[in-house]
């Protein structure tokens, strides 16, 4: 026994290295097994001044989600973060179906967003989304969720302002590459899945306790 303890002490670094390798290895393997494909999830990217997303449980309720959706993923990143633009590139434009962003981050990247057809504008308007739209060259790309002039918000559970930072309008947009926007843009080649639109509607209907 004494010999064994001495031997273990002698190679402590090796034993610890093996432990670390195994922990990382199984995290990677199980991450691979439990990975949810883009078809089975709706991803939301929130770029405001919030650090949490209060409506997470509400938008993840199975009852309203289509059967093929296993989860709604929410990535909340504060605009103040140093790496915000990198996060927006990776988790926003790369993965998200729905994005909530300030006006300054939208205008130069309009090619990432899906146009919203008149039919869907009316649908959201009827739901009470009457603050305004994000328009470029007569095409609507975003639904206004916060108005800097009136300080009104359609999603009051998010923070849109910060001290010493000029106020901005915030919009909800749909990623052009999303698999879940059905015929949002009114174009024929769009897909059949519409979970992103269902989730967006759900986000507007959340009421704070």
């Amino acid at each position, binding site marked *: 026994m004494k010999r064994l303890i001495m031997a273990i002490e002698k190679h402590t670094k090796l034993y610890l290295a*093996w432990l670390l390798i*195994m922990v990382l290895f199984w995290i990677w393997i199980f991450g691979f*097994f439990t990975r949810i494909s883009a078809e089975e999830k709706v991803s939301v990217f929130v770029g405001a001044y919030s650090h949490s997303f209060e409506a997470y449980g509400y938008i993840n309720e199975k009852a309203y989600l289509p059967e093929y959706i296993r989860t709604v993923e929410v990535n909340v990143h504060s605009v103040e973060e140093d790496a915000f633009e990198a996060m927006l590139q990776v988790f926003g434009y790369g993965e998200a179906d729905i994005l909530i962003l300030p006006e300054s981050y939208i205008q130069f990247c309009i090619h990432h967003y899906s146009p919203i057809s008149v039919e869907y504008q009316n649908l959201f308007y009827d739901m009470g989304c009457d603050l305004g739209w994000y328009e470029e060259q007569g095409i609507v790309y975003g639904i206004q969720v916060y108005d800097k002039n009136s300080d009104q918000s359609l999603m009051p559970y998010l923070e849109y302002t910060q001290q010493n930072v000029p106020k901005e309008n915030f919009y909800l947009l749909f990623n052009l590459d999303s698999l879940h926007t059905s015929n949002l843009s009114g174009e024929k080649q769009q897909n059949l899945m519409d979970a992103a639109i269902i989730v967006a509607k759900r986000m507007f209907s959340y009421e704070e306790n």
Partner: protein
Amino acid sequence: MIKLYSPQELIEIEKKEKSYVSKSFVLILFTVIGCSILCCFVSENNASVLRIINTICSTMAGWILICWYLDFIVPMRHRKKYVQQLLVTEGGLFAGEVKQISGPITLEKEICVYKLALSLGEEEIILYWDSTKTLPSFLNQNVQFRAVHHKVTAYEVLK
């Protein structure tokens, strides 16, 4: 002369070494099969539990393998080479009085030995006695040793 090493000892070392190597392979096989079987049953609900089980099992198995390899298999291989070398070479004879016994000290490749200071008249030489062999009380006795590179392979107490 009483011989310290025999071909039988070499066979026994080889047997032990093979036994550890085969045990290691069995352990690897069981761990890989066990973890693979558990992976077949992964679902969203049990993923975190199965991940912890697999991590613990593979870590423990790895630790046992490291322990067997570094502390049993490798020293056995060294010892096998050491004994082989001593059996193959005949070596020289040294007769004299044992003046001092010290040690044990570790030679190259983790071989542990006692140092014997042997007086050959005016000259004195150092011989190494394998610590795994029982060391008789040689002090101040006249002994004839057979040694290969100063490592004792046989001895005879002179009257």
